[in-house]
């Protein structure tokens, strides 16, 4: 059953302080309301994966690895490859994380990141068919959070995107309905790069890229992913607060404009293999 994580007295006090600052357009770490923390992306760290990326967003650190297997397609989608995204918050990521199967937060994280990639049609799944109805590529994206300091949604999304952009998958030749793995590797067929932008509402302010401290005080959270044409392709509101319709219009504008500028940065960072 779903139940809210408890907030402490300290967090409630901190919230008061934070609201005061935000009323003056300031944040605890000195950033402006629309500023991201420093982003670093290292790709190719894991040679045993088909693709990998280690992303630091301020103190938040996540690692994504891509593994590609050959599998059967779903019976109702004989001409589509498979994309499966999993996330776990490792117990070393924070004093509050615990070993065990993914909890509702980790499941939501994986599903929202998956949605951004799937709905933007980032991967051309129709080009991942080897034998129609029988053999397709199955692309597994596994993300592990190494250090948790807020905005896991964007960090995870950037890591999966960067790992997919730089992945190399084996090429198969088909001989008499049998697959023969060739020496050659090929990149994944990519249509677009979706960019996730996560915002938090604290009091009346909308801030971008919240830290863990800010998340502990926030009323609500929202993640929007946009594609290269500036279309919104996935949204997830979170948290026990609400947004007004006007705020949601503002939020979409932020997501589209910041998305555009960050797309370039992320493509460049991911390309530096």
């Amino acid at each position, binding site marked *: 059953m*779903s139940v809210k994580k408890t907030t402490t007295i300290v967090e409630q006090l901190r919230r008061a302080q934070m609201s005061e600052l935000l009323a003056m357009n300031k944040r605890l770490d000195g950033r402006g309301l629309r500023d991201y923390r420093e982003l670093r992306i290292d790709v190719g760290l894991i040679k045993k994966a088909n693709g990998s990326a280690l992303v630091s967003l301020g103190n938040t650190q996540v690692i994504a690895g891509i593994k590609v297997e050959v599998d059967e397609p779903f019976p109702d989608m004989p001409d589509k490859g498979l994309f499966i995204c999993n996330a776990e918050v490792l117990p070393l990521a924070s004093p509050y994380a615990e070993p065990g199967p993914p909890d*509702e937060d980790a499941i939501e994280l994986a599903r929202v990141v998956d949605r951004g990639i799937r709905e933007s049609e980032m991967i051309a799944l129709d080009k991942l068919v080897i034998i129609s109805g029988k053999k397709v590529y199955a692309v597994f994206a596994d993300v592990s959070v190494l250090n948790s300091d807020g905005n896991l949604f964007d960090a995870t999304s950037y890591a999966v995107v960067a790992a997919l952009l730089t992945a190399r998958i084996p090429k198969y030749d088909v001989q008499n309905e049998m697959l023969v793995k060739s020496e050659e590797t090929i990149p994944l067929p990519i249509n677009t790069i979706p960019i996730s932008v996560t915002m938090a509402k604290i009091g009346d302010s909308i801030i971008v890229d919240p830290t863990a401290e800010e998340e502990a005080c926030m009323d609500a959270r929202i993640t929007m992913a946009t594609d290269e044409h500036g279309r919104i392709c996935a949204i997830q509101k979170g948290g026990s607060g609400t947004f007004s319709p006007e705020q949601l219009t503002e939020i979409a504008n932020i997501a589209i404009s910041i998305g555009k500028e960050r797309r370039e940065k992320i493509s460049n960072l991911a390309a530096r293999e």
Partner: protein
Amino acid sequence: MSRLMSEEGIRIDGRRWNELRPVKIEVGVLKNADGSSYIEFGKNKIVVAVYGPKEVHPKHMALPDRSVLRCRYHMLPFSVEERKNPAPSRREIEISKITREALEPALILEDYPRTVIDVFIEVLQSDGGSRCAGITAASVALADAGINMRDLVAACAAGKVGGRIVLDINDEEDKMGEADMPVAYLPNLKQISLLQLDGKLTADEYRECLNLAISGCMQVYNMQREALMKKYFSTADKGGEDEEE
């Protein structure tokens, strides 16, 4: 892709772009629960029970200053085309969470410190929009349980199908359409407590969709009020929109 929209703007199930599917809401359908409701929303058939406010076990989960809200969204094995394993899927776990977050702002949890309120949503038959129907019914069941509330929560999706922005996506439209955007709305507070999107929308389409969904939520809200009045006021007068409960 099958034609989801006729040239005359008629949808696959005969509706116009701004029309809801048939909705039926009943209040107080289960004897043991503190509050309960049953909703039919298109082919969705969902029953909801509320237990609480009640003592918390284990006790360390209790909060000194407010009640703890717990939510479960669950589908029966025969509610979908392919028999579903009874264990909770990742999808059900996510929907349980966003349902809780959609309901929480409407509840005055501070009135019930050291207690828990449980909301159980059981989908007997599933169609497009079951999360919205579940939130709508849960909100009614919470009211039926007598929980203090700031507002009801009415939920409804809008989306893009066959190139047009339309209200209340059904199963086929969800699968074949271009976008689905579930929204939960607190009508008196004019606040949105659930927003998700699957599929692609331009900024303009997004605003259009949001407004259409809110208008759908207002229709749902009236049906929620009617259902509650039908139970609580014997002369089942169809409640006007400007009345507060």
